[in-house]
């Protein structure tokens, strides 16, 4: 059978720009969504975008350190999710809503 075409690769910048796009989308989600949970998810999205840059740079420098940063980010994200979701549960229990612009005062 005929030889396959030699695979063409993309430069590293594409990865970085992709992560920039994802980050921007995360920010957009944070800004334009009302549900606390969705906002929280947008934060996770931003974190993921940052992770991508870490891994990309780690590839660029041929060093593993970036992966470790990603790893730590994941751990932090996990902790954050645990506490954050607990907070969200409590908020919902006390306020009966998750819309941020209705949760704008510290005391009920």
């Amino acid at each position, binding site marked *: 059978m005929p030889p396959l075409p030699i695979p063409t690769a993309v430069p590293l910048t594409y990865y970085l720009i992709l992560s920039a796009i994802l980050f921007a989308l995360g920010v957009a989600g*944070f*800004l*334009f969504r009302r549900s606390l949970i969705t*906002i929280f998810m947008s934060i996770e999205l931003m974190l993921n975008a940052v992770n991508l840059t870490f891994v990309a740079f780690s590839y660029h420098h041929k060093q593993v350190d970036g992966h470790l940063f990603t790893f730590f980010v994941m751990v932090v994200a996990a902790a954050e999710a645990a506490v954050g979701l607990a907070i969200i549960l409590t908020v919902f229990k006390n306020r009966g809503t998750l819309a*941020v*612009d209705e949760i*704008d*005062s*510290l005391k009920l």
Partner: protein
Amino acid sequence: MHHLWLIPFLPLAGFLVNGLFGKRFSKGIVSVVAIGSVALSFLWVLKCLMAVAPLETPHVERYFMWIQSGSLAIPFELAVDRLSAIMLMVVTGVGLLIHIYASGYMHDEDGYYRFYAFFNLFMFFMLTLVLANNFLLLFVGWEGVGLCSYLLIGYYFVKHSASTAGNKAFIVNRIGDFGFSLAMFLIFIAFGTLDFPKVFEAAKALPVETAAGMTTAICLLLLLGAAGKSAQIPLYVWLPDAMEGPTPVSALIHAATMVTAGVYMVARSSALFLKAPVAMETVAWVGLATAVMAATIGITQFDIKKVYAYSTVSQLGYMFLALGVGAFSAGIWHVVTHAFFKALLFLGAGSVIHALHHEQDMRHMGGLRQKIPITFAVLTCAWLAISGVPFTSGWYSKEAILGAVHHHSPLMYWIGVGTAAVTAFYVSRSMFMTFFGEYRGHAHPHESPPVMWAPLAVLAVLSLAGGALFNVPHILEPIFPAAHGEHDIMLEIIGSAAGLLGIGIAYVMYIASPGMPASIAASLGGVYRLVYNKYYVDEAYDATIVRPLVNSSRGALWQFGDVWLIDGVVNGIGGFSRWIGGGLRLLQSGSIRSYAAWVVAGAVIFIIAAGVIGGAQGGLR
């Protein structure tokens, strides 16, 4: 490597086990753990000493670099030479006996496990102190034993007197430790290290400085530390109050081991002291003064433990006297024998107190000779020993000291002899008041259980034969040059005579004609009251130091410094920021999204700035 670290760490393990889980254990398990750990470390001491004998040169074990900062390098090193070997034997041996005794004495106390946990912790720190090979590690042990002493004096913390006594001991010791730490700083400045071998090598090279100088300063500060720990003038006041603690504590910490730490430390740094005659002289006089003063106070006390407490102070004075006149080995010898008979005295007293259901006033005792014969028998041995009756342990060490003192200065010698007589007198007095005559109390005395009197018996044997058994000066030959002053038979006779004289007078006053003491006290009322009230030293300190300090700190520090200055500043800042915040508050709408928008704006601005700078530098690398 003989794993010296096991010696202190076994008791530490005991402390951890009891301290963490003791509450759930039965008293049996607690005491097994505590006593077992100490027994093991005693055996380990024996094994190590066998292994490293004959120990002509110190055996050092380095474990790891403890503190490494600039030129200050402090390894975690344990060392054993002949001096620390003796101390190890005394601490673990006597400690073991007292642990066993305590399991009987403390049996009905609550917080049993707490007591043993602290006891083990004390052993750990004491052994660290003894094994340390540099000043800092020794200081760790030093502070640790202080802590344990504080904890155990305040063991009955519900009793107000107990807790205050604990605080007093702690604070007074702070003063001493302050001196000690200053001494350490000076040592580091002068020698650039804190390791014993290096410091003392360097010290040996120094010339003897006759006038005051660095070495003298170091030694005097060390003496201050030692005075705090070993209850010497002017810092002895805490020790009598420390008797608030349980009797085994008084025996182990405040008679046998901890209070001799100062002696050990001074002997350890003999190389320094030998270069500072001024300091040596001070040591000697401090010791002598303490000995006399405490002995005289001892005469007038009625609380049996107080009597022994003051006797401890005066015996420590003896040791310092010995150190001061350069008879280090004699001093250490007295440490050893004193550990035997004083521990025995305290434990015996404890046994008496235990027998009389916590009656400590000798005026309510008497005639216990038949009621608690074993206690009487063992206490008699201690009595003979401390009174320096010939060929008892006390006699050997005391004669050694007096011999050296005589060689140093006859005046000191005669005072010392007098003190010896007084010592014999008040100990005999306590014995007579306790055991002879007819019973004046109303409790129903009962002999203590074997677990209590068995250790007493051992100690009794030691305090009789201990002096002959351990010829300390001979053992310490390689470290300290032989105590000059060849055995002068005359001196020995005088010393012994003094002891016997004291006993005799006591006999006359308390057995032959019991009315006498009162009349004498009446005849010299002023003096008697002065002595009876311990020369009003506590009151004096209170008036001269404590109260001014309290008042000044209340006025200057609290009212001015804290309330006016600090609070003023803080409140000012607070008000200012509130004023600012009043302005900024308007930004805080409470809607997260607007905050986020601000953040994004900030990010964009930042990126623009970064881009501009990056452009200026032509791209990032």
